């Protein structure tokens, strides 16, 4: 039976308690398994959104494809599933993970713009390449962001 403490600990006991807390933080970060399938799903969502450029008509009559909103919903559902699978809702992602997230958004916008450019030049087939690039790079960057968030847990 664990009793509440009636006295302050000694300096050595206090230092040992603080070391124990650091060890628990390490164990927490080490114990979380990286949800690779769901991170790849984020890459899939990015690829799907970039591929939407293939059915767009760049020019005066350009209308943004509605797949953008569906991709946003799919990404939010994937974030929810990552939280469920890992059993952790992060409090802070850290600067590095934040920068990687911004890079993911910027990359998707750039690849979408390139895809629209390719379509306008009649190379609609080449959107396959930008779409595959989106899948690969976003999957990888999502993994980098997740591992950075885990590193934040250790601090």
């Amino acid at each position, binding site marked *: 039976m*664990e*009793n*509440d*403490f*009636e006295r*302050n*600990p*000694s*300096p*050595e006991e*206090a*230092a040992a*308690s*603080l070391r*124990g*807390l650091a060890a*628990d*933080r390490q*164990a*927490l970060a080490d*114990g*979380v398994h990286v949800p690779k399938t769901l991170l790849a799903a984020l890459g899939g969502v990015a690829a799907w959104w970039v591929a939407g450029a293939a059915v767009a008509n760049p020019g005066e009559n350009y209308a943004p494809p509605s797949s953008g909103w569906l991709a946003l919903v799919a990404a939010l559902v994937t974030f929810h599933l990552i939280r*469920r699978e*890992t*059993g*952790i*809702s*992060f*409090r802070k992602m850290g600067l590095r993970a934040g920068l990687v997230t911004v890079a993911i958004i910027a990359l998707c916008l750039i690849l979408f713009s390139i895809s629209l450019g390719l379509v306008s030049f009649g190379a609609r087939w080449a959107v396959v390449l930008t779409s595959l690039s989106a899948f690969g790079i976003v999957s990888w960057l999502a993994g980098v962001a997740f591992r950075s968030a885990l590193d934040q*847990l250790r601090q």
Partner: protein
Amino acid sequence: MTKARFDDLIHAPVRLRICGVLRQVDQMDFAVLRDTLDVSDATLSKHLKTLAEAGYVSLSKAASASRSDARRLTWIALTPAGRDAFGAHLQALQEIAGIPE
């Protein structure tokens, strides 16, 4: 800046570890916390009950798609009061240990 305050209720070893892990996250599943601390369900439940009664942690249930029975995921979080109390307790430990902030 948090003012140092030693908290007897938090300082019990398992409760100190619970607060230390929860401080790093927004919310955490019961099973992940149990596995991180390497304690039994009963031990963790007992200490969570004590912390919840003190208003230091909150527990919420969520449906689990991976379970076919009525069991649910339990999400645990430090309350703002718990976060403040643990921060003050950490300060007290650092002062006692002679560790500068």
